[in-house]
């Protein structure tokens, strides 16, 4: 510690540049990871908020809610407990004169079933009549207010905004919760169908209809349009970013250690044990990486505060802390690669002729 701290104190410029580099790398990784996770979670935020375990869909719908319909005839073979809720999905364009149009996911729900009951509103009240909707806060950011009237697609029907919910996103679109009967109207289904699917909090839930099939939440989510492709892109992007950053940091610390060898040779000649020098090297890398990490974290937190709401960011603490641990470990590895050089440093090499 003595040697490493003294060296940092003397070579302030060099070490602050190295810390700056580590800060920038941490910042880059943290921000990109959070942005990717933010976007990714917009696919599933609504689904996650329901705490569902499984979903029943038409078995020929390719696990897609938008392709699935459950008919009146099938209803007889379906038994619902308080752990099940029917949803009807429709993609809509929502608009109000004077405000921007929004592509949204209309989800028809039954006000007596768990999705409607469990909804956590940030303002307004729950559904208690027809032509009422509860909508994602994204609408609020775009100027929509409680009691405003919305129209969907080309229909003339007005829907009144009675509440707002946070993080209600499905497939990156904001969700509009409405009555299942309104869903039938929007879809022009003439009352022949009762919904698109049945969501259950029970992973073993089944119906007696052979045309309907139960899918696990993960199966369902992975089949959301574009979701899997997007996620694998993110994973590769962040993976490569991490590997390359870690190599860069390791190389820097390696060079740093190489530059110390001459001084170490002098100390070895004086009889200072190699262990002292190895400890100094490692403790210095740890100091550098950890200070870089801390500053990077602070920068990330500040960024999160000032970044506009329309840019989704999600901070997954376990993932970010494993990134941090990875950085510290590579810092140590980078400093340790030349350890053989430290151990075998030849004092004679500096004695000069």
């Amino acid at each position, binding site marked *: 510690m003595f040697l490493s701290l*003294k060296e940092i104190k003397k070579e302030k410029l060099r070490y602050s540049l190295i810390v700056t580099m580590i800060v920038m790398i941490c910042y880059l990784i943290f921000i990109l990871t959070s942005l990717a996770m933010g976007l990714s979670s917009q696919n599933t935020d609504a689904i996650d908020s329901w705490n569902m375990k499984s979903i029943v869909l038409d078995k020929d719908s390719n696990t897609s809610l938008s392709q699935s319909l459950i008919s009146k005839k099938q209803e007889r073979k379906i038994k619902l407990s308080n752990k099940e809720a029917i949803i009807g999905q429709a993609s809509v364009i929502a608009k109000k004169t004077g405000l921007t149009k929004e592509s949204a996911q209309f989800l028809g729900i039954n006000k007596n079933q768990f999705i409607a009951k469990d909804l956590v509103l940030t303002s307004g009240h729950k559904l208690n009549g027809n032509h009422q909707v509860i909508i994602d806060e994204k609408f609020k950011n775009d100027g929509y207010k409680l009691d405003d009237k919305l129209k969907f697609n080309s229909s003339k029907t007005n829907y009144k905004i009675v509440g707002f919910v946070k993080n209600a996103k499905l497939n990156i679109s904001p969700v509009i919760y409405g009555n299942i009967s309104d869903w039938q109207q929007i879809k022009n289904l003439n009352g022949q169908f009762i919904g698109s699917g049945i969501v259950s909090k029970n992973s073993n839930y089944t119906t007696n209809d052979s045309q309907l099939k139960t899918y696990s939440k993960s199966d369902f989510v992975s089949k959301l349009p574009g979701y899997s492709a997007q996620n694998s892109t993110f994973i590769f992007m962040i993976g490569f970013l991490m590997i390359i950053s870690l190599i860069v940091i390791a190389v820097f610390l390696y060079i740093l250690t190489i530059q110390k060898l*001459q001084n170490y040779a002098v*100390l*070895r000649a004086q009889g*200072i044990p190699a262990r002292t020098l190895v400890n100094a090297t490692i403790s210095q890398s740890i100091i550098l990486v950890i200070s870089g990490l801390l500053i990077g974290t602070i920068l990330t937190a500040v960024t999160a505060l000032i970044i506009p709401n329309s840019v989704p960011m999600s901070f997954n603490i376990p993932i970010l802390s494993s990134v941090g641990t990875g950085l510290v470990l590579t810092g140590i590895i980078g400093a340790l690669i030349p350890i053989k050089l430290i151990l075998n440093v030849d004092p004679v090499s500096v*004695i000069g*002729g």
Partner: protein
Amino acid sequence: MTTLQLNNINKFFGTGTSRVHVLNNINFSAQKGEVNLVIGPSGSGKSTFLTIAGGLQTPSTGSVELDGNKLSSLSKKQRDALRLNKIGFILQAYNLIPYLTVTEQFKLVKKIKKENNLDDQELENLMKQLGISELTNKYPNELSGGQSQRVAIARALYTKPDIILADEPTAALDSKRVIEVGKLFQALAKEQNIAVIVVTHDLRLIDYADNVYEIMDGQMRLNNDLKKKVG
């Protein structure tokens, strides 16, 4: 009493036609209480001799004994400990760690070798004697060549070694300082019973030596006549 003994030392560098015979069958011994001067021109093998004597490199053939222990029979760790506790090295170049102040150079040693170093008062006296007591908070890059050399001497003496191995310790010093360093070595040998071995081409030190050796083309011989000539 013989402290350091070199028996039939040969040192070769390189192989084949580029092989050079730097040290040729050298026998040498140093007693406690004596200043030994090894004089020779550049490239004659002085530094090689000194580093072999201090166990920093191994001879091609022959053996080095310190207080009766063969260096070749010691482990790397034991040789480290020996250098730390018994030998004070004053190297030809790069003696000081650039990012430590003069005081911290001593502090670092104290962290490793906790006992039996000079106490604060003794260190202060030594620094005064060497004319460097004003430099305690300076970094090596703020010192002149002669000042760093004197700090290096103080650093080597700090651990109260039994043997001092010095490589051109006076190269950057003016005659006045050379006399002081010569006297210091003499005093250390006589008063603290240390064996001092200095390799140099600086004839100004001859007055303070008990034995003067000449090294030439890898061969070494005692030549105390040099003393009379110069003295």
